[in-house]
């Protein structure tokens, strides 16, 4: 397993880019790693008009990790256009599990990426 940290950075980059496009102006980001996994905490506000896209993002983030897709296409993550749907799908392929909470105009993600 290589480029692990670069991939984590790309995931965060994509989320920031996505939420900028979704009207986000207030971001909290935390990354924590231990022996078993990397955990990304991401919190942002958003413009209600973009809620359908955010719902779609939530669906993509819970599709389950796909190591083969990740290894072939992770190079695309982090460099794309705002709101690029295809790259959200890619982020979904790069994480194992997502806990998502939506409250008071803010969305909070806990994204987990197991090692190995």
């Amino acid at each position, binding site marked *: 397993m290589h480029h692990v940290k670069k991939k984590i950075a790309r995931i965060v980059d994509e989320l920031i880019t996505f939420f900028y496009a979704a009207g986000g102006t207030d971001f909290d980001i935390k990354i924590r790693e231990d022996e078993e996994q990397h955990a990304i905490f991401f919190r942002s506000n958003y413009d209600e008009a973009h809620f359908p896209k955010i719902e779609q993002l939530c669906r993509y983030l819970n599709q389950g990790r796909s190591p083969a*897709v990740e290894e*072939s296409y992770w190079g695309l993550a982090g460099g794309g256009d*705002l709101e690029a749907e295809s790259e959200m799908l*890619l982020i979904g392929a790069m994480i194992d599990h997502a806990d998502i909470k939506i409250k008071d105009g803010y969305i909070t993600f806990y994204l987990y990426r197991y090692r190995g």
Partner: protein
Amino acid sequence: MFPIENFKETIRMKPFIFARKLLWLICGSLFLFAFLTGSPMEILGGMWRIVQHKAGLIADNFAVGGIAATFFNAGCIMAIALLLFQILKVNITGPGIACILLCAGFSMFGKDIINIWPIIAGVFLYAKRHKDDFNKYIYNALYGTALAPIITEIAQIRGDWITFAIAILIGLGIGFILPPLSTYCLRVHQGYSLYNVGFSAGLVGTLAVSIMRSFGYKPESQLVWVYENDVRVLVYLLVLFAGLFVLGWYLSGWSIKTWFQIFRHSGRLMSDFVLMDGLPPVLMNMGSLGIVSVLYLLAIGGSVNGATIGGIFTIVGFGAFGKHMKNVLPIIAGVVLGSLLKIWNIYDPSVQLAALFGTCLAPISGQFGWKYGVAAGFLHSSMVLSIGVFHGGLNLYNNGFSAGMVALILVPLIESIEGEKLNHASR
């Protein structure tokens, strides 16, 4: 719950299980068609000729080994790809369908049951070198076989065990360098060319052929092409694609609305239509693209032979991973327009392939609009006919190489023109 509802629920919840079974069915149909059109001895003889023949562009296996052996070879390669997915426990969704059908398609002109292995083994060594599971690199391994003709070419220089061993070593080397290079190349075209490995394989092929030339060996491209259409092949293809469409239509509750919903996607990498919209509309998309591709070739007076079926299978496969009617047709229109203004004809072999394989630039029309798609197709048809000389026809994905170049030039230009409209949040 009735069994049929169970069946539909399985497709909705676990599309990869149904996709795998469907691909095995298509694989079986290739074998069946082979045995319906030729005897076992004819197939055996044809396979021997295919394995021995130079595999570089353009060697239509219909002419080299006959129709039956061509389909048998395609069935074998497709079965190998499917087995690899199954053994390595990789789920088959859009990227998997595209990869497996592409392999089957290119087995009709270039890939055979011998020349693919050194590159696959090279990618395996790369995975082991990085202490990774091979299943992460399955796409690199299978797509990487674009350079399989180099193995055949080198092995035949003297035809003895020394050149055979050198060919294997070079194949291992190619497989070893392709994964990191392919990842890097993605950044260059930003996912606007669907045949990413075609771009990286083009670069590796150019390097390999340059080295071969500097040692005095000059691989030459070839044109082995069947011009007549075989009715049996046409019937097989149209039944297969109509079957896919009808199956998808049925699974969608006899509604084509879901198929049209696919058209809203740009198709840019990595647009996995199976995960985005479900398998039933994807089947309609694949079937319709296949039918239109066949009809296009017939309309222009082209040939439905091994090479063009390779293009058709690739389009159909990428119907699950980036291509749909709305983003593909402008590219084809650009190639057609080019043939009206340029010095070649729309029915010339290379131009037929340019129209089919050039559709890997479909994300450009999907993202920026049909006009840019037409421009991409127009430019691609010029680029692809000039660029093959660099790798001596030994990169089977010559169109992917060309498309990567076109995307690299065109996309920044389009973004500079359209940037403010596209990136409204960048203000």
